């Protein structure tokens, strides 16, 4: 301890100066400003006046950089920026003394931009670019604690699953675009009848839905989302509850006009949604880590939306969109609150903490508010969402009883989970938690969750405001027609109300039985099949195949690599020669004395290089070859090239001579018949090709342009130099950069070893 003193002080100082700057609030302010900017469109959009922005991108392919802010896009943009502002503020406090705050903020900002772009895009390619942007930033953010094996594994898992889904989506978008003849999403949506009638519809549907299911964690791809909880709490709250995972749901909603209404759509979305919903809510009961429990309820929420979109029609869409908002508010609020619990008490496992309400009254209030909305209690927004869900499941044209029963079961399980989150950590007898004195965290941490939890209550109390601002335009954009009826807290007695009461009763029973269920699930867990093990098996197999391939192809033998390369090169040339229409050339075969002289010099030098055992002789002969070529250049009017060749030849000899001093004698090159055959095939191919080329006509228009414009336009009489420094100056600039880089690289290679040799001494 004593020795570490000064260092610790130093570290703390830098950390403080890092964390205390006001810059850390900038992202939150930017996001808040963006929220306000988007808010100005609420009025026009709700009146059907939809702003668009289109910039040409690749007009030849019909691809544009297009954005369209309809009700769905606007709601998402507001959610992303609004919740973003709170999460950024939260993150600035959560990582206050962490030097990685800047990189976290940057990644979060990049994610927010991708997400806003994804939701507002009106071009399939634009959408896909942003879609991939969210995948990559999510990878970075899940792997934020990259020193931990678990984080890396979770990050790669999320990347592979959502990335593979992204590729499927891309293919689906391309097929859909070529079918419709436009990549604009709005036009695709107008062509819904064409798409549904096409024989390609099942292909398009499967590919697009694969993208949606992977992104929104539907069975059998659901397991990556709980794994993604390896990310820091602000990231989980933002990406894996409120925004990114909803991208899949968003896309299903976006393509509802284009793809929905078929049996395939309903028969895929409803069963998968319902199954994932129950699976996830059951597994939520198994968790003791509050964050993991919330992760499973997130999967459940996403499945609920998938199922509702699968049912289709304005009722179900209205329920899905309302539930989307409900879920975003309470889930982000709860995630952030769990972070507060962890900061305040040192743990987020409900078996380790209890009775915190007295020490952390503020956190307890926030969690209570958000959990009541999650449980669907009156008068919270969650209640309205739940009523709408029952309203639509009861009227579903697809197995209404089964769907309603599934919804009741899932909602009851959710009720029990919200009970766990709200009651276990805060009530009962206080016990020793990992932190000695648990306390509420500072304002920057509680502000965001408080607003979100309060929104859950306010939206419940004033449903008509939410309806006008968000829900009605969203439903209009997705279902193509207005909201049927109005959002209201109290519809009077009716089927939804009775179903709600049934849910509460069942949920209460489940809550009481929770410990028993938990124990039962924990015992059953190892025996149950898990789709994650399919993933693991697949990845292991992939690794094996890759390893076998590289052992086979990459045998570590340089000679065999080169042999293959040269053979492949020769094969390409020979195939082109034999398959092509080139005829044997009719050039002049006259050979003069000077030609013989040069030919003899170079050929003799080649033979010497091949045969000699002496390095010095080899280098000299190499110089002979170069000089012979320089003479060819002189004879045929390439004075500049000849000079360059000669000077380079001199330098090559100098360099070789220097390096040679330290390279050992290795004797001559032994004769290897196989190599000779390969080299021979390649050499003959080159000779024949060149003869063929010389026999064909040559387009001299470029040369003539240079000849005519060199003197009058570029004011130079040496055409070669004018081409180099004027007509093709950009090329030359790149080439000078290459020379500089080669010099730097060679310098680095030489000097790095030198330092090592010295340091080792």
């Amino acid at each position: 301890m004593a020795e570490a003193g000064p260092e610790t002080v130093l570290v703390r100082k830098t950390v403080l100066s890092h964390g205390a700057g006001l810059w850390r609030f900038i992202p939150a302010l930017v996001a808040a400003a963006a929220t306000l900017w988007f808010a100005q469109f609420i009025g026009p959009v709700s009146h059907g006046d939809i702003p668009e922005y289109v910039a040409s991108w690749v007009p030849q392919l019909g691809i544009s950089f297009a954005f369209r802010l309809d009700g769905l896009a606007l709601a998402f943009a507001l959610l992303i920026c609004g919740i973003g502002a709170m999460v950024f503020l939260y993150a600035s406090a959560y990582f206050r003394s962490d030097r990685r705050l800047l990189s976290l903020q940057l990644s979060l900002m990049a994610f927010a931009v991708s997400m806003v772009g994804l939701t507002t895009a009106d071009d399939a390619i634009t959408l896909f670019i942003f879609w991939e942007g969210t995948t990559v930033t999510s990878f970075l953010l899940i792997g934020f604690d990259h020193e931990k094996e678990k984080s890396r594994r979770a990050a790669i898992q999320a990347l592979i699953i959502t990335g593979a889904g992204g590729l499927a989506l891309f293919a689906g978008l391309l097929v859909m675009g070529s079918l419709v003849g436009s990549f604009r999403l709005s036009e695709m949506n107008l062509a819904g009848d064409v798409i549904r009638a096409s024989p390609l519809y099942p292909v398009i549907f499967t590919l697009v839905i694969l993208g949606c299911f992977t992104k929104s964690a539907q069975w059998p791809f659901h397991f990556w989302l709980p794994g993604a909880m390896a990310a820091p709490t602000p990231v989980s709250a933002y990406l894996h509850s409120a925004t990114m995972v909803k991208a899949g749901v968003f896309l299903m909603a976006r393509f509802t006009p284009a793809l929905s209404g078929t049996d395939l759509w309903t028969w895929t979305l409803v069963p998968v949604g319902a199954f994932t919903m129950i699976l996830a809510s059951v597994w939520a009961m198994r968790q003791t880590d509050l964050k993991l429990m919330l992760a499973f309820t997130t999967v459940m929420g996403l499945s609920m939306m998938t199922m509702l979109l699968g049912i289709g029609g304005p009722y179900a869409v209205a329920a899905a969109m309302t539930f989307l908002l409900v879920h975003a508010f309470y889930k982000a609020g709860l995630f952030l609150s769990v972070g507060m619990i962890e900061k305040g008490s040192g743990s987020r496992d409900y078996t380790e903490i209890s009775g915190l309400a007295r020490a952390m009254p503020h956190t307890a209030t926030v969690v209570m508010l958000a959990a009541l909305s999650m449980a669907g209690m009156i008068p919270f927004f969650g209640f309205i969402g739940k009523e709408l869900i029952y309203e639509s499941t009861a009227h579903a044209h697809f197995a209404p009883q089964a769907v309603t029963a599934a919804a009741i079961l899932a909602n009851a399980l959710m009720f029990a989970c919200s009970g766990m989150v709200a009651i276990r950590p805060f009530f009962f007898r206080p016990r020793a938690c990992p932190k000695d004195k648990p306390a509420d965290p500072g304002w920057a941490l509680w502000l965001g969750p408080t607003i979100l939890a309060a929104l859950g209550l306010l939206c419940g109390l004033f449903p008509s405001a939410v309806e006008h601002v968000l829900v009605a335009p969203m439903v209009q954009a997705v279902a193509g027609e207005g909201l049927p009826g109005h959002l209201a807290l109290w519809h009077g007695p009716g089927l939804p109300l009775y179903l709600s009461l049934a849910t509460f009763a069942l949920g209460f029973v489940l809550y009481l039985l929770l410990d028993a269920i938990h124990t039962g699930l924990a015992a059953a867990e190892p025996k149950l099949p898990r789709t994650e093990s399919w993933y693991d098996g697949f990845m292991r197999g992939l690794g094996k195949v890759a390893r076998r391939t590289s052992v086979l192809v990459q045998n570590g033998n340089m000679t065999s690599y080169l042999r293959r390369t040269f053979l492949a090169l020769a094969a390409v040339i020979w195939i082109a020669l034999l398959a092509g229409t080139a005829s044997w050339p009719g050039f002049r075969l006259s050979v003069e004395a000077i030609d013989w002289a040069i030919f003899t010099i170079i050929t003799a030098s080649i033979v010497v290089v091949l045969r000699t055992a002496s390095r010095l002789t080899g280098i000299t002969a190499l110089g002979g070859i170069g000089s012979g070529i320089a003479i060819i250049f002189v004879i045929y009017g390439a004075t500049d090239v000849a000079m360059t060749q000669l000077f380079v030849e001199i330098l090559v000899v100098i360099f070789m001579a220097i390096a040679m001093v330290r390279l050992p004698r290795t004797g001559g090159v032994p004769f290897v018949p196989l190599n000779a055959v390969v080299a021979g095939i390649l050499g003959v191919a080159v000779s024949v090709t060149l003869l063929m080329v010389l026999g064909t006509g040559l387009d001299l228009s470029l040369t003539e342009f240079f000849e005519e414009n060199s003197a009058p336009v570029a004011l130079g009489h040496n055409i070669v130099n004018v081409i180099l420094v004027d007509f093709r100056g950009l090329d030359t600039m790149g080439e000078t950069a290459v020379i500089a880089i080669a010099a730097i690289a060679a310098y680095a290679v030489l000097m790095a070893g030198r330092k090592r040799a010295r340091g080792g001494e």
Partner: protein
Amino acid sequence: MEIMIALLAGFLVAAGAYLMMSGKTLPYLFGLTMISNAANLIIFASGRLTFGKPPLIPEGAHSIEGASNALPQALILTAIVIGFGLLVFALALAYRSYYVLGTTKMDHMNASEPGTEVGS
């Protein structure tokens, strides 16, 4: 002359490839130089051969007729210098690898390959 240049290019490529396949660093560098020489020769000849009239516009004239093709010359000129840069970098690598790995046999420089022992 064309047939001579075509033959020379073939010889150079064949000899260069043969030397590169020898598995020793110095012959490898020799081979590399030969192949880059051959490439320059091929590009030059592809622009057609014109005897003894460099592409220099006489003083006072605006244009020139019947001179040798300037375009491939410009391309080769930089190619020669860049080829030299590449060769020197390869030389530095060869030198350094000999110093670090203690061998000039390229088949022994396979520490990063799968299924082989380091420096075997």
